[in-house]
């Protein structure tokens, strides 16, 4: 195989290896086939053109052409000429596909099905990267640049779904990169010269490189150190370590619940972080002060995931929606971008004019469909009653009895997070009633207590993210709502999280809901009152947020409380003027993190943080040789093991450490003499040691071992005094004898095949008798 063909294969294989981090993005493995085909076709066309002796320009054109043809065949939708040659219509089709793909990427949570626009975009991107990759490695012979292409490939899944992309998958691209560099270097050297061993032996081209072992070791070390650094660098979201614990593939836990294809949390994070705000719906209602629109309810709490959907199967027809009195308002929703399997509704819906495939989840009050989704609904209307609660009533409500099923289900929480318990303790100190606890937690999460709204925080609501949020005080509605609900559950208050849309902006006729209006808040169950919404997120952070009246300090109420029933859907009361004029402000730009925030605050909680452990380990790392050497000395000189030979071994190693090596072929007497000559002060101890080992080995009588440890000590002191500072430092922290030991060990382990050669290595023996197609010295 000629070297260019070989390099082409290496380029293709390395980019194929780099597809592995995408495993977390797509469901199944079917997507690998078209992508591998893309790589194969592009590399193959480049290889063919190269074989024809054409230049880089034609090679690149050929690769681009191959990609275009491939896309036309696969995604042309029949617009291509003969299905192969793209026409203007084909490009138009591509543009549509790309647009669809982009919107899918924003909304869908990984893992997604690789089809349509997403697959098109992926193939296109991978194709472009493959072209660059091939150019860097084979055509331009600048394999170092291939690191960029590999990094690009790794960054795609990382940026799309940091949660689903484990750091572990960084190893493969890194290994692929090292492979490329090693292969290119081999190619370069083989082309211009001969390879040599460290001793100056020539190595034939077919033989493994004599330095390959060291290169492999240093490569592995490099990757290990990089990963270690990645692991310990604290990030403002969940650190990489979280994902170590979480493992690969668990990060997508949100997507496989009964939420359906659309993960509301992902949708929430994606929508709020959109660079361009889009309108998702327009609502017309006769309610002057509508509340948030409920969509999803997350009441199942799992530490690794946070709040997720409960397992409710009981979907009742829409005509069973109850009406329990109060003013009935009507609203019409014009759907622009919603594709969820749930319909957004205000307050307690009384009737919804959606089709038979829609129903109401009796437990959560969510309007949902098993078979259809909002994607099929352009417009729908519903009638509803507003929530109305009085804080004094709420304050006077007693907690549910402990054996109440509602209390049992909605206070279920993982119990082994002591830090969280501390926060709850702090927030609810002195609170008796459930309402006091709610107030305590709300105050705790308030801006006055140092919490700030920050959308930059990662899209996660798991235990780690919540603790980070409570420590750093930075998060957005997902963390606010999850943290509040979690804390209340710890405080034995039945709670759930609701995801939906805040009010949006009012233009006098319509409420316009944009992607910024996606929001999450909390509902707390009060005996006799039902589910009462609370919003811990500061109003400044949420577009169209609402000032919830019962959220404030209880005071003299103007309203008569409505004594409702216990059903979650039956709170109703007359509309009130409330205090909540919709705030029309845009979301405030997140306050810039003080960089001490994320890093500094994470350790004063006193909690265990693996990052610090790693850092401590890293600090100990330089001391390992010192410790090892000391342990070795101790082992040799401890009374049980002490013999003349072990003392002599220590002597030899000491001499090595202090730069006065004793050769294997030197007798103890000679060694002692040369040491005594170099360091006169060492004469007495080293002579004693040498004669002891002589007697032990050769007299057949054994030697007295009394005083040998002292002799070693004296020798060490003498040697220590005789050398300069630098040598002393090296002898203590980087003992050469250990390095020798290590290389001897490595030589043993590496199990070279040409081990049968005599144990002696002759520097002057050159290549006589060595096989290999060596044509002569260069």
């Amino acid at each position, binding site marked *: 195989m000629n070297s260019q063909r070989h390099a082409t294969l290496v380029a293709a294989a390395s980019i194929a290896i780099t597809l592995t981090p995408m495993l977390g993005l797509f469901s199944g493995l079917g997507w690998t086939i078209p992508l591998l085909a893309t790589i194969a076709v592009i590399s193959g066309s480049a290889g063919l053109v190269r074989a024809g002796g054409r230049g880089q320009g034609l090679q690149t054109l050929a690769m681009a052409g191959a990609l275009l043809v491939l896309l036309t065949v696969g995604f042309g939708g029949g617009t291509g000429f003969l299905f192969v040659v793209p026409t203007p219509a084909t490009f138009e089709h591509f543009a549509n596909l790309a647009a669809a793909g982009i919107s899918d990427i924003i909304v869908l949570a990984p893992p997604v099905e690789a089809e349509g626009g997403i697959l098109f975009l992926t193939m296109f991107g991978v194709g472009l990267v493959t072209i660059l990759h091939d150019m860097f490695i084979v055509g331009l012979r600048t394999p170092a640049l291939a690191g960029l292409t590999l990094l690009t490939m790794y960054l795609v899944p990382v940026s799309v779904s940091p949660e689903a992309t484990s750091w572990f998958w960084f190893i493969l691209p890194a290994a692929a990169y090292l492979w490329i560099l090693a292969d290119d270097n081999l190619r370069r050297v083989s082309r211009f010269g001969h390879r040599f061993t460290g001793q100056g032996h020539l190595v034939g081209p077919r033989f493994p490189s004599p330095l390959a072992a060291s290169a492999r070791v240093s490569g592995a070390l490099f990757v290990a150190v990089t990963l270690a650094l990645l692991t310990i660098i604290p990030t403002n979201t969940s650190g990489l370590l979280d994902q170590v614990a979480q493992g690969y593939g668990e990060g997508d836990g949100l997507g496989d619940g009964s939420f359906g294809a659309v993960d509301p949390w992902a949708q929430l994070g994606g929508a709020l972080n959109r660079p361009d705000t889009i309108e998702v719906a327009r609502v017309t209602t006769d309610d002057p002060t509508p509340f948030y629109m409920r969509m999803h309810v997350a009441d199942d709490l799992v530490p690794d995931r946070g709040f997720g959907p409960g397992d409710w199967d009981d979907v009742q027809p829409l005509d069973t929606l109850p009406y329990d009195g109060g003013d009935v308002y009507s609203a019409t929703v014009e759907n622009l971008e919603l594709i969820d399997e749930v319909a957004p509704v205000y307050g307690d819906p009384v009737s919804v004019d959606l089709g038979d495939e829609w129903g109401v989840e009796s437990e959560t009050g969510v309007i949902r469909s098993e078979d259809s989704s909002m994607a099929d609904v352009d417009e729908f209307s519903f009638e509803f009653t507003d929530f109305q609660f009085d804080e004094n009533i709420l304050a006077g409500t007693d907690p549910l009895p402990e054996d109440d099923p509602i209390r049992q289900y909605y206070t279920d929480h993982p119990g082994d997070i002591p830090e969280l318990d501390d926060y709850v303790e702090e927030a609810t100190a002195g609170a008796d009633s459930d309402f006091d606890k709610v107030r305590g937690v709300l105050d705790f999460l308030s801006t006055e207590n140092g919490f700030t709204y920050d959308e930059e925080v990662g899209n996660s609501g798991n235990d780690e993210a919540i603790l980070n949020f409570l420590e750093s005080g930075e998060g957005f509605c997902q963390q606010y709502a999850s943290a509040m609900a979690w804390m209340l559950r710890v405080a034995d208050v039945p709670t759930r999280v609701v995801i939906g849309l805040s009010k949006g902006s009012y233009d006098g006729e319509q409420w316009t809901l944009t992607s910024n209006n996606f929001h999450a808040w909390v509902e707390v169950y009060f005996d006799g009152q039902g589910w009462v919404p609370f919003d811990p997120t500061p109003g400044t952070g949420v577009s169209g947020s609402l000032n919830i009246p019962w959220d404030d300090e209880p005071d003299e109420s103007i309203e008569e409380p409505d004594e409702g029933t216990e059903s979650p859907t039956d709170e109703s009361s007359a509309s009130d003027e409330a205090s909540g004029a919709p705030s029309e402000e845009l979301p405030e730009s997140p306050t810039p993190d003080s960089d001490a925030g994320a890093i500094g605050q994470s350790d004063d909680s006193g909690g265990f943080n693996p990052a610090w452990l790693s850092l401590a380990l890293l600090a100990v790392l330089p001391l390992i040789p010192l410790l090892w050497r000391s342990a070795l000395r101790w082992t040799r000189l401890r009374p049980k093991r002490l013999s003349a030979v072990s003392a002599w*071994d220590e002597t030899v190693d000491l001499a090595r450490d202090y730069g006065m090596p004793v*050769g*294997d*072929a*030197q*007798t*103890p*007497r*000679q060694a002692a003499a040369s040491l005594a000559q170099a360091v006169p002060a060492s004469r007495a101890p080293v002579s004693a040691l040498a004669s002891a080992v*002589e007697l032990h*080995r*050769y*007299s*057949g*009588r054994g030697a007295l071992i009394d005083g040998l440890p002292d002799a070693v000590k004296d020798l060490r002191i003498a040697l220590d005094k005789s050398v300069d500072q630098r040598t002393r430092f090296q002898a203590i922290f980087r003992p050469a004898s250990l390095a*020798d*030991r290590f290389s*001897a*060990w490595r*030589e*043993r382990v590496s199990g070279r095949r040409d081990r049968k050669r*005599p*144990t*002696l290595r*002759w520097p002057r*023996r050159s290549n*006589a*008798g060595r096989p290999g197609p060596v044509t002569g010295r260069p």
Partner: protein
Amino acid sequence: MAFESSPQQAQAQAPTPLSPQEFKATAEAILTNVEWVIEGKAPTIRLALAVMLAEGHLLLEDVPGVGKTQLAKALAKSVDCTVRRIQFTPDLLPSDVTGVSVFDPEKRDFVFKAGAIFGNLILGDEINRASPKTQAALLECMEERQVTVDGNTYRLRSPFMVIATQNPVEMEGTYPLPEAQRDRFAARLAIGYPDVGAELAMLDHRGEFNPLEALKPVCDGETVVRMIATARAVHLAPELKRYAVDLVNATRSNAQLKLGASPRATLQLLRCARVLAAMDGRDFALPDDIQQLAVPVLAHRLIPTAETTMGGGDSTAIVADILRHVPIVSQPGRY
């Protein structure tokens, strides 16, 4: 120091060994004696004595006039035993060496006239000038320590040692010893020129009298036999034997050598090492002893390849190189 040397007793039973201290003292007395004659060559003399006590034979290879014959004579005189000298020439016959049966008219029988070999110390001068036939006769005696003439076998004396000399420079009209015969010599030594001080001292001494004539023996043949017995009892540790074998093996696998050392070389190496240890007052041998002996005992048995010779290498340098590389403790990697 008094030695109980009773010849009758010694012949009757095995010689009683000396204590290490006695051995050392006696050896040093001999060395001092010989050094009185040959100034500034203590290490060489020491090795020569070691070879003698190891019952080996010595090949002195050096230029004329550096004291080869003096060394042999001084050594012989110091231990009070008989010295015979054979000047080898091309017309020397084997019978001149071994002896010959002549007809005694009075007894009407053949009587064996002992040759020059019947002595304790035989000095064979310029051994390479004798014909191969004569060389072979001498070498046979060296190995067998007996002479067979006309069907009668005569034992040679003990101690018995041949010190052969040859001139490495002038090779014209010589019969160089074949490898097989060189192998019979336990060691080859070169005396070398004396340094300036030693040469000056020599001039002072020799001006007045010949020190060799004034030399008095410091011990008798009987003591020498006992010393030989003592040296044989010196302890050899297994590690040391292994080291010797490693050294010899290294000569066999060395690419610069056409021929390595024989097992006989190993034997003689260790035998001499024992003597050196005893001379040092020890009852066990050390690798240091072996290292001192490696070049004298091994070098003359090795044949370098033609490339090495042309490249200016010789077997002495190769043995020295081997000594620098073979580990004392034979474990592939102590670690």
